[in-house]
């Protein structure tokens, strides 16, 4: 288990991280989310030891992390972290050896990884002569070549086409299934909501939301029940807590507060007339973020918000 505890960091006078806690369980793909400038990259650099935090601790399985432990970690930075003039194979062997593998082991692993990301025939190609998509795959291979226990990826989905996204998702979920500890950052919150099982959401250097994605979405209190039903809306009188979000050409959208069972509302609707379509829309992560950021602005601490969200 990877933990960052109460991390505080400033660049000059600017506070970048203000008491952030992150926990990443092995086997649970975790997203570090937030808008640009939230402090995600700085937090990753601190976790990786590239910079030292002003305050706070980085722990792995409860122990402080040092360079020896980080040899078993893999990191994929946001830019194309590749030497433009080096060929693909040598690049992989170099990073493997930097992480403590022998040349022979590194070469063997490099061949395996190039095979896995579909670049088996590209060993001798300079990385700046590869297409953008190939460079992204090579970069991923670079961070995985030493079979790391902890995998940290900064904005891995930025700029990927849907096919490449799906391939990357498969590669990562394979590692997660094998019990690796995987954390990735993204500013495109909705892009990763179906991939990440748990999230930590940052805003302006503070944690605004954290926990399992399904729980956070289901318990948010901003669920909407969508029902296509003609006729009178008088039956709604039985649910005083439920409000009408919109009612356009027979499609009725109802906002369900925490504590209202959507199935009871649906049953009442079916008794009132013929329901031709229905669905329960959970809030997207960006909707949850906006809501949480708003609470944060009102002066509530992230901890209070956590309780409000999970109190259902």
């Amino acid at each position, binding site marked *: 288990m990877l933990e960052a505890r109460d991390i505080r960091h400033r660049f000059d006078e600017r506070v970048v991280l203000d008491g952030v806690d992150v926990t990443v369980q092995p086997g649970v793909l975790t997203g570090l989310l937030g808008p640009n400038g939230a402090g995600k990259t700085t937090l990753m*650099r601190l976790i*990786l030891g590239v910079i030292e935090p002003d305050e706070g601790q980085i722990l792995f399985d409860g122990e402080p992390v040092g*360079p020896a432990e980080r040899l078993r970690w893999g990191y994929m930075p946001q830019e194309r*972290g590749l030497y433009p003039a080096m060929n693909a194979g040598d690049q992989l062997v170099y990073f493997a050896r*930097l992480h403590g593998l022998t040349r022979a082991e590194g070469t063997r692993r490099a061949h395996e990884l190039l095979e896995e990301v579909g670049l088996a025939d590209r060993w001798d190609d300079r990385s700046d002569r590869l297409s953008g998509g190939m460079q992204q795959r090579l970069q991923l291979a670079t*961070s995985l070549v030493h079979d790391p226990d902890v995998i940290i990826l900064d904005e891995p989905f930025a700029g990927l086409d849907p096919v490449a996204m799906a391939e990357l998702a498969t590669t990562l979920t394979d590692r997660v299934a094998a019990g690796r500890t995987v954390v990735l950052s993204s500013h495109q919150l909705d892009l990763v909501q179906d991939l990440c099982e748990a999230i930590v959401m940052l805003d302006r250097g503070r944690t605004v939301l954290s926990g399992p994605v399904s729980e956070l979405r289901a318990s948010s209190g901003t669920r909407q029940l969508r029902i296509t039903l003609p006729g009178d809306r008088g039956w709604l009188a039985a649910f005083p807590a439920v409000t009408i979000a919109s009612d356009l050409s027979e499609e009725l959208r109802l906002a369900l507060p925490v504590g209202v069972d959507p199935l009871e509302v649906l049953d009442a609707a079916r008794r009132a007339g013929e329901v031709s379509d229905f669905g329960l829309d959970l809030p997207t992560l960006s909707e949850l973020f906006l809501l949480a950021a708003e609470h944060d602005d009102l002066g509530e601490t992230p901890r209070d918000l956590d309780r409000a969200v999970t109190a259902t």
Partner: protein
Amino acid sequence: MTLTWWGGTRLVAGRALAEGFASTSWKVVTGLMLLVGIAAVVIPRLFASGGTTYTLATVGQAPPALVAQLDALSRAGDFTITYDAAADAGAVASAVRDGTADAGIVEVGPATRVYVQRANAGTFPALVSGAVRATATVEALAASGLSPGQVAALQATPAPEQVVVGPVSDEGRAGVGFAVGIVLYIALLLAGTGIATTVATEKSTRISEVLLAVLRPTQLLVGTVLGSGLLVLIQIAAVAVPVGGSLLFASGSAIPTSAAPDIVLAVLWFVLGLALYAFVFAGLASLVDKVSEVGSALMPVNFLLVGSYLIAVTVVAVSPDGWVSVAASMFPPSAPLVMPVRWATGSVPVWQLVLSMGITLATAVVLAKLASGIYRRGVVRTGQRVSLGTALRAR
């Protein structure tokens, strides 16, 4: 499984070397350097062998006694004589007239005449006349009854010793010093640019972050400096090895043997200069956000290097012991370029050389510490160009 300090540093240096060996520009520059080194040996020699050669036209084979006299003169005067055997006096005259021969002689003996192309034709006809007279004198002496041993003794009268009273200047060696100045300047510039480009590339691609997760900044810095420095050292060797080899193994080199220690010293000065400048180049390059900004970030240090070079090849070459030259050879930024040029003039006391090296080395250590601090802070601040002030002040 851990990586030792040296293990990690060696990996970084090895990577920089491998990338250099694979790059076309490195191969081209090294090839050019090798050509320069070979040219420095071969071209002066071509001129030397194409030096003074005189041709003497004779009727039939030249008389052995005359040839012996002329050969002795040519050895003493450092020139070569070839002989052109013509059919008769008319052919000798026309050979001289056409210029295929520098002089011609007919009727060896009391009636000897020397043919020249025009009046006052220069040294060679005078030498030939002298040789003819000497030959005649020897014959006359033998005819007057002296024994062959006595004639030989007279001929063996030694020539007066030549005493040099002009200023002692070894122009060849000073020329080597001048060339060393140029090569050192180019070498430091190449190494510095290589280091700066590597640092800026690693920072702009965020490779530096992957590296810094497993390496300490000093490993990355020292490894990069070692790798880039070795690449340029090989290029210097491409110039120095042919020149040094010709000094050691070939006789009659156009480059004076007295310059051999200067060439060894030049390599030492490159290492010192690299130690002084390399970390500054790396520190400044760590401030940029894009590789394209490297040029402007390096401007101040490039100015320093160009200024030192200009002092070395202008002021120092003309007046190696003037106060400007002495000061510039002690001032650390210019010492690596100025001192080798001064030293090659042969007038620098050893204590000045040692002092200059000491000052340079001490400054290099201080600058390396300062620059690694700048590097450590600069390389993690991405998104915009970091000011030097920020990099110096920040924690």
